[in-house]
């Protein structure tokens, strides 16, 4: 019979593919190890970032007092009379990031409410991807738009505004991070069960009351997390502020004058001709470390808020 013939052949059958060897090691284990290495690269990236920043910044702080660095408000590392007060750069970063949030927060949240509570599915399916196009536009394009379109517009309104200013960068950066706020907030709102909305409608609530008194409180952790993530994004954003906000490290919160952010300073040094190994060059690691600590803290905070305050619904 056929089957018997086959069973005889088995002794001469080729070694099953899944036992193949590679230099004496089972192929399966080689592949598993290779895949492990791929996953390890992402962990090594983090270790690499931290190691590079800490190592180089440590050398910088060997020459410059850490205390002066974090408390000083004058930042002139490229001048003959050098000052290393990072607060001048932090002020620029915080100012533009907060400005961006002032734009993105109300617009993003209201857009999210519109999509989650008002828009019929058809409209939502149309609007949401278009809104996400905003998030996909390269930041260099926003920088161009800020400097050459928004800034002249602002200067038409008031002549007292400088060519480089925090306001223009803030507005455009706000538009850039808006989809992040709206998209993540909307996800959080849509996760609020329908039954809660119905419960409120059944008591005679209007859409406004349902949105603001039931849906938003129930989705609050997700909404707050989206704000923090967007803020973190604004803090780390580079090209818009480099192009539109200037390269003048002023310790000020005035949005109408030129300033410099941490990221813009890194670009400035990278573009310049400070040789590697000089103190001027090492400043970028100290600044980058400061920036990294800021954004890491905000990312961890948003993860903590989501994990800690999420209302569990069935």
């Amino acid at each position: 019979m056929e089957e018997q013939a086959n069973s005889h052949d088995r002794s001469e059958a080729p070694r099953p593919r899944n036992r193949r060897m590679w230099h004496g090691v089972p192929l399966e284990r080689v592949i598993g190890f290779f895949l492990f290495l791929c996953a390890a690269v992402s962990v090594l990236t983090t270790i690499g970032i931290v190691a590079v920043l800490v190592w180089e910044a440590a050398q910088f702080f060997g020459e410059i007092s850490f205390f002066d660095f974090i408390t000083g408000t004058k930042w002139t590392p490229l001048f003959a009379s050098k000052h290393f007060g990072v607060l001048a750069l932090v002020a620029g970063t915080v100012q533009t990031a907060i400005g961006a949030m002032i734009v993105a927060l109300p617009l993003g949240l209201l857009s999210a409410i519109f999509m989650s509570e008002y828009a019929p599915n058809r409209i939502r399916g149309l609007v949401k991807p278009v809104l996400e196009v905003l998030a996909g536009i390269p930041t260099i394009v926003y920088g161009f738009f800020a400097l050459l379109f928004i800034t002249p517009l602002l200067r038409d309104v008031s002549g007292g505004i400088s060519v480089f200013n925090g306001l223009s960068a803030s507005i455009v950066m706000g538009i850039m991070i808006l989809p992040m706020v709206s998209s993540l907030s909307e996800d959080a709102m849509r996760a609020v069960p329908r039954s809660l909305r119905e419960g409120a409608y059944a008591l005679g609530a209007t859409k406004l009351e349902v949105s603001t008194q039931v849906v938003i409180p129930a989705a609050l952790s997700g909404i707050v997390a989206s704000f923090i993530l967007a803020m973190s994004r604004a803090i780390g954003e580079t090209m818009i502020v480099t192009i539109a906000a200037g390269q003048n490290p002023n310790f000020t919160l005035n949005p109408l004058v030129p300033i410099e952010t941490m990221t813009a300073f890194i670009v400035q040094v990278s573009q310049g001709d400070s040789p590697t190994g000089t103190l001027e060059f090492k400043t970028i690691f100290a600044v980058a470390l400061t920036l990294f600590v800021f954004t890491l803290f905000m990312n961890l905070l948003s993860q903590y808020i989501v994990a800690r305050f999420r209302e569990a619904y069935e």
Partner: protein
Amino acid sequence: MAVIAPTDFRKRKERRKWQGRAFFVLCLLAITVALGMLLVLLIYIGMKGWSHVNWSFISSFPSRHPDEAGIQSALLGSVYLVIIAGIVSFVLGVGAAVYLEEYAGRNRFARIAQINIANLAGVPSIVYGILGLEIFVRSMGLGKSLLAGGFTLALLILPIIIISAQEAIRAVPPSIREGGYALGASRWQTIWNLVLPQAFSGILTGVILSVSRAIGETAPLIVIGALTFVPFSPDGPLSRFSALPIQIFNWTARPQAGFQEAAAAGIIVLLIVLLGMNALAVILRNRLENRS
């Protein structure tokens, strides 16, 4: 038991209705502003740069004269960068995703890797530039080359690729794997022959979207030392390079109106490339959804 007096629930009725309508208008206004901004941005750039976009703009090298300036070297630089970053991050990203989804289970390393990936996605791109400068340009001695730039961008988009590849792999039903194991296939055979083909278009969609993000990245390339004036085409992986966003940045910073138009034209080319890649991703995603 307290007796409740008849109450006047209708008192605030008119005000509440009015507020509700006002709120709706406010929401509508917000979304209109957001979408309007996109429109204004596109129209402005189109008006400013469209007349500059032609074949000689694409095929010329940069020049001191705005009318003769072109983007050939920058565009080629971007293409090479994206090819390098795409291949490296595809292999590493899919490998990591397969490991985390199919091999690691719930062990300690997998948990750490997962948290780590979520945080890496939030690291500012300029910090990746500094990492690339130290590791690829200096320690590995690649210099300020295409390879260093491509590797840097690969690390930058790796977290997004891993996350999207994980989602695509997770979407493959367990029954497919069980079917494979029931036939005596090994783990890798099951993954390679059954799971990955099912997840492939989802993975590819994520890779294309991530790579399109890499095309627009400017800051990390500035940090690792991309050139702003490259009158030659890159001739190998260790060649110095420029990239489209770098060229746009350089032109934007110049005061002459001619260069600003060239910058706008460069942006148009950049956006067309992005649009093309996104369209490709959407087509792939639709094919994926139709199949399942």
